């Protein structure tokens, strides 16, 4: 009897020890009962949707007090600039979810939020900050990681976006997802487009003498009609910003080249070479804008009429003379000069570089605020040539006072800044 008792005691002890050891192993998903598949799907969907709203719409609830908020990695705060700056801006999410924003209701922005999956059932969800800190931005751990086809593997990898993770403490469950960067680009409808201005169009805009001088030259692109049937293009709505380029520099290991003045981050990056522009666009899974796509944006073919340009200007009173321009007149994410497609900054403080396979010597759009309104180069889609270099080596083709000889003149980066934007072409879709 005693022997049996010893055996039972020993077996029981082993069982108890086994159970204690087993349940002391921290395997969270085994310790808490996971909700049903339907319920968990709902929690994931609504949680991801909450983060996605902040990603694509920025401060869409108008809850942040930007006057009182200070988040250094944002550079300039939206109290002073267009709120477009907040959309698809990973730094905004980083500041938001690491409690760096002051809300109008007196609270701090938080990494935690609640999801109501029914009238009576709420779940608390947290955005995990588990990615390594990036010293040039902040010492805090990151809530996101940049993902891109140029960095990652896999056929389903987005051309460019961020990966994030939500954590539901109650069930010790975390879920990862990717947010694509779609905010600042728009789709070019499939149709015919015009490229280059006809001499007739120029004639309407220029003095007789000037037109006669121009027609003596051959330095005008041949107007063409082309179409994008079966091809899918998306065009960047805004010029590439310094903040965009800073991230590219970081991935290249060129941290020392990152623009140190954070005030400049939301503004277009300038003074790059053509190769650097191309490399940046490639990093984003894109290509530098072409002259044909530039014209597709700024020309609008009215039904049953000749091709006519239409630039929807919201601010005709903006200074037209370069004398009135300075850093204070620059606007980050300016929407003052919009195209019919809903793309912007077609007339700004910059010349815009383009690629031009059809007429390679015309790769710099001079339509800008830099030139007086009546300057012969200041016409929509007028282009000249640029040697693709930056700094002191940068030169563009210029004409003498009577539009005679074309000559190459050095560009002064402090006076003529060259900006750029990218486009993306996708394969055929089913």
């Amino acid at each position: 009897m005693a022997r049996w008792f010893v055996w039972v005691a020993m077996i029981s002890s082993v069982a108890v020890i086994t159970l204690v050891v087993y349940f002391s192993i921290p395997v969270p998903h085994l310790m808490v009962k996971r909700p049903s598949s339907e319920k968990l799907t709902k929690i994931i969907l609504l949680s991801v949707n909450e983060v996605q709203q902040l990603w694509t719409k920025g401060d869409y609830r108008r809850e942040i007090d930007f006057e009182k908020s200070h988040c250094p990695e944002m550079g300039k705060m939206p109290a002073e600039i267009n709120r477009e700056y907040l959309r698809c801006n990973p730094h905004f999410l980083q500041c938001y979810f690491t409690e760096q924003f002051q809300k109008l209701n007196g609270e701090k922005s938080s990494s935690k939020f609640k999801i109501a999956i029914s009238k009576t059932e709420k779940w608390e969800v947290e955005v995990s900050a588990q990615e390594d800190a990036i010293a040039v931005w902040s010492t805090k751990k990151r809530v996101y990681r940049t993902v891109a086809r140029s960095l990652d593997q896999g056929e389903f990898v987005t051309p460019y976006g961020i990966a994030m993770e939500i954590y539901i403490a109650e069930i010790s469950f975390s879920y990862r997802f990717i947010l694509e960067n779609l905010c600042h680009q728009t789709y070019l409808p499939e149709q015919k487009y015009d490229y280059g201005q006809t001499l007739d169009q120029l004639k309407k805009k220029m003095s007789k003498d000037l037109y006669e001088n121009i027609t003596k030259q051959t330095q005008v692109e041949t107007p063409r009609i082309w179409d994008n049937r079966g091809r899918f293009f998306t065009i960047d709505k805004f010029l590439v910003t310094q903040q965009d380029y800073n991230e590219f520099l970081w991935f290249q290991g060129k941290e020392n080249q990152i623009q140190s003045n954070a005030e400049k981050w939301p503004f277009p990056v300038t003074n790059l070479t053509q190769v650097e522009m191309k490399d940046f666009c490639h990093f984003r899974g894109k290509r530098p804008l072409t002259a044909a796509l530039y014209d597709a944006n700024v020309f609008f073919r009215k039904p049953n009429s000749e091709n006519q340009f239409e630039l929807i200007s919201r601010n005709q009173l903006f200074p037209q003379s370069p004398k009135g321009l300075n850093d204070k007149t620059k606007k980050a994410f300016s929407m003052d000069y919009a195209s019919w497609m809903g793309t912007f900054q077609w007339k700004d403080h910059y010349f815009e570089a383009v690629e031009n396979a059809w007429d390679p010597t015309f790769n710099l759009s001079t339509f800008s605020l830099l030139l007086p309104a009546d300057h012969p180069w200041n016409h929509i889609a007028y282009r000249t040539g640029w040697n693709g270099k930056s700094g002191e080596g940068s030169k563009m083709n210029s004409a003498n006072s009577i539009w005679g000889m074309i000559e190459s003149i050095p560009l002064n980066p402090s006076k003529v800044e060259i900006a750029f934007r990218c486009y993306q072409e996708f394969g055929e879709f089913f």
Partner: protein
Amino acid sequence: MKIIFPTFLFLFFLIFSCDKHFKQDVVIDDILMGSYEFQLINLPSDVNKNAIYSSEFQKKPEEVLLRFKSLSLTDKKMKTIYGCLISQLKEGRFYLTWHVSDLLDSCQISDKSISTLADLSGHELTLESEVIGGISVSKLKLSYRKSVKGEIKNFSLNYYLLNWKQAEIKEGRLLPARQREIFHSPFFKSSIEGVQFTASFMGKNASKEIPSLVIKNLPVSHYPDLVKCAEWDDQCAPVMDDKCHLCQQGYSQVMHGKCGLHGIRFCGTVDCGGKNKPPCHLGRSHIENEDFMGCSELSEEWLCHPGLILDCSAKPFPLCH
């Protein structure tokens, strides 16, 4: 002492066998959540359009019902998980098995069986949609009958496919029902626009890496150093599998002029119009004109830079000289 060790083993087996069943369910739910491509095998043509499979159609002892790919996100890498669902008929009983693998051919013997749903009579797999919290989601619904206390009852399991807003079956594939709208991008439309859902569970635990599936662009844009991703011959027959969806920065098409819309596609950008480069072309409208006769030196539809001559007879496609 002899009984202690077996007892210990028994208890461990008991505990971990329960755990195994639990984890199996978790895994397949999560993996399908991150699925982004479905290929339906042996799709019966005479069933309603949403029915993917019904046990009534099973003719062989073992049939692969569908294959799928899911995106997983590990700590530092992304990877694709391959899976399939197999139906086995043994002694008049059906067994459904989910297989997953990080290898390309997912239904091979190297696969891990992660979940077996035993003895499911009268099972049917359908594609349905459901609105969850105001968001439209596609799901695979597995309906089956099972005897409970001597009574046959109907059951169903839902597997949510969050990477599809609305899916439809076309030619044996599950495809996103995409409407191309003006000003809307042609991006993949998941349940929430611009979100890619992943197979999170596998992602956190996966360690094995797979070879890159992306075709990296070489820093060149000149033929013949470009990476070819698709090609059609003069008779418009495909010469190779189309891999252009793997290109890092999209692809460029060079038309050879003999097959209307098709030609050779290269990953990345192809410089056109320059010396020894293909001519630039102005779009399909030109080529689809009724009087289109292929590449012509007299045509304005094919562009070479000033001073260069278009050679329509050059191989493998027209060139500017």
